[in-house]
């Protein structure tokens, strides 16, 4: 079977690249095969970037090109579209480019509300999910029984799609029969219309997202906690610190790296909350009071065909994301991880 596969592969390669493809079974360096290519392109690349570069290129270049085309090419194209007046079903007219759509977005109160909501959602969700996740990690880390079971339970919601969790929480928040209102009713509160009330719905969404993703934060913090040497706990104890003080002064400050990596991922999830909101309001309807840039953009594009305007909103969203990614990449670079 394997022989058949490798033979088919080399035959395919020969068909596609001609006879220059290096055979898997001959142990030769790239320099040898490159010479047969005639032009000496590989030799020149070797001189310029080093042999390791040309040798490893077949591995990283194709994925990189795919990502470059689909991600960065698409973003560039998206930017150009945002400069046109593309609407409706006729393709974009690239001859007349201006920033009109951005001017329109800045003056659109719905876009401003969506920007504020995006910001609130990202910040509130990330902060609360980090807090809950840290508490969970500390609880789990206290040498408890059935640790793995509890960990799996806390992580379970993360395996569900936004569409599924939206169904669950729509039911949880149901005015007449939802668990939330029945639980609050036991304390004499409510019932409250969580989804229909425009000043509450954003926080109801944040709460549901915290439920879905704090298990992830827990896993990251747990790894961080376990990487702290035992001596640090012991030293704090010798100094007579109480458990609370030990965590606050000694342990939590050492979780900075975990906090950063968890926060970045949480922010990405928050920016993707479109799926959740789409399912919550069942379709392209605006989630009154919880409209974020992601939902606004998709609605403008696919519901009303305001393609150029949607592209401009997408660029605003992208710039918000960039303001998170940029500093993170710089931090990683400084840490020597890039």
């Amino acid at each position, binding site marked *: 079977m394997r022989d058949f596969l490798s033979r088919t592969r080399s035959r395919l390669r020969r068909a596609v690249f001609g006879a220059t493809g290096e055979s898997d079974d001959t*142990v030769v360096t790239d320099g040898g095969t490159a010479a047969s290519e005639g032009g000496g392109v590989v030799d020149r690349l070797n001189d310029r970037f080093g042999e390791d*570069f040309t040798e*490893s*290129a077949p*591995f*990283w270049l194709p*994925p990189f090109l*795919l*990502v470059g085309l*689909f*991600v*960065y*090419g*698409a973003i560039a194209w*998206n930017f150009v579209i945002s400069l046109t007046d593309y609407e409706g079903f006729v393709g974009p007219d690239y001859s007349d480019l201006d920033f009109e759509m951005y001017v329109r977005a800045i003056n659109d109160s719905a876009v401003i509300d969506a920007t504020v909501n995006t910001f609130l959602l990202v910040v509130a969700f990330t902060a609360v999910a980090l807090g809950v996740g840290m508490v969970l990690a500390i609880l*789990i880390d206290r040498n*408890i029984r059935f*640790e793995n079971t509890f960990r*799996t*339970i*806390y*992580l379970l*919601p993360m*395996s*569900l*799609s*936004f*569409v*599924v969790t939206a*169904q669950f*929480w*729509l*039911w*949880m928040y*149901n005015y007449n029969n939802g*668990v939330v209102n*029945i639980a609050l009713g036991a304390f004499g509160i409510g019932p409250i219309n969580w989804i229909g009330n425009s000043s509450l719905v954003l926080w109801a969404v944040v709460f549901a997202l915290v*439920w879905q993703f704090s298990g992830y934060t827990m896993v*990251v913090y747990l*790894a961080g906690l376990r990487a*702290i040497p035992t001596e640090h*706990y012991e030293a704090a*104890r010798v100094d007579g610190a109480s458990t609370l003080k030990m965590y606050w002064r000694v342990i939590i400050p050492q979780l900075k790296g975990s906090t950063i990596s968890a926060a970045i991922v949480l922010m*990405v999830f928050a920016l*993707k909350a*479109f*799926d959740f909101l*789409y399912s919550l309001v*069942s379709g392209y309807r605006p989630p009154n009071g919880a409209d974020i*840039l992601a939902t606004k953009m*998709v609605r403008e594009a*696919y519901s009303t065909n305001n393609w150029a305007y*949607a*592209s401009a909103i*997408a660029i605003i969203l*992208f710039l918000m*994301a960039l303001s998170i*990614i940029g500093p993170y990449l710089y931090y*990683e670079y400084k840490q020597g991880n*890039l």
Partner: protein
Amino acid sequence: MSDAHLDEPDSTDSTDATDRTDGVADRIRDDLAGVDGYRVALYAAIVGMTVFFLTPIESGLVTAFKTNPGGISSTLPFAPPPPRFFTLEKWQTALAALGRGMVNSALYAVPATIISALLGSFAAYGLTQADWRARYKAPVLAMLVAGIFIPYQAVLVPLSQFWGAMPLAELLTPLWLLGVPQSYVGLVELTITHVAYGIPICMVLFRSYYRNVSEEMIEAARLDGATFRRVYRRIVFPISTPMFAVVLIYQFTQIWNDLLFALILVSTESSPAAPVVLILAGLGESMEGQDFALRMAGAFIAALPTLIVYIMFGEEFAEGVAT
């Protein structure tokens, strides 16, 4: 509960590995020693959080077995259905509605998961084990890492344009001649799109793994004359198995669960190629109101593959995320 208990060295060893080797007698003694205010509060908090995480799922599960109207309005949302309100009808309806969606989702989620994991592994190998100059490598890496964080909205309009302009349907003519519905072209688009957007996260996960691979082994192989490609095939790929497990779990979950690309590329839930999330998003909607029992049953069916994967491989996943 006093400070004296808190000062007990109950967590001086932060792993519970030693616990497991203890004998039963030791364990019982430990348990009895642990029964104090502090342990009680700790377990109360842990169980309380368990209730918080399980309630929405539990409530959904019992609701899916209740009659609507009737059962779901006259019983508590977290209480199991009493016999007179018990029904399996919603599960049958949901399965009938979602069945083809499950097949469609699998048709693109499985290949997209495997291909993106492989390409991610290739990229990570090419970018960790090859020692080319940092000033060229850093931008390549930065672009791949940043790819994880791109909000999909920033590429949707060009993506629609791109797939609209691609003559993919013509290229795949043999498939339609074989009787595959033409709308399945959307599934091919979804596969390629998910592969492209999945590569960055796969690359990052594999890279963290490959950086810890023993260098001596690879250097020795290199000195013996093995090519860069041969080292991957004979050494790096075989030892990647644990990381492949993690990446495949993660990617499968992401791709199976994603609504946005499905919505944009397949667009209607009535399409023969509609993925399960797309059908689920519109399930149980009608003019008379929402059929929550049907929605809950649908949610469970749609979530089943990823739930199974998590329950079976949750441990491996947790360890993989942590690295």
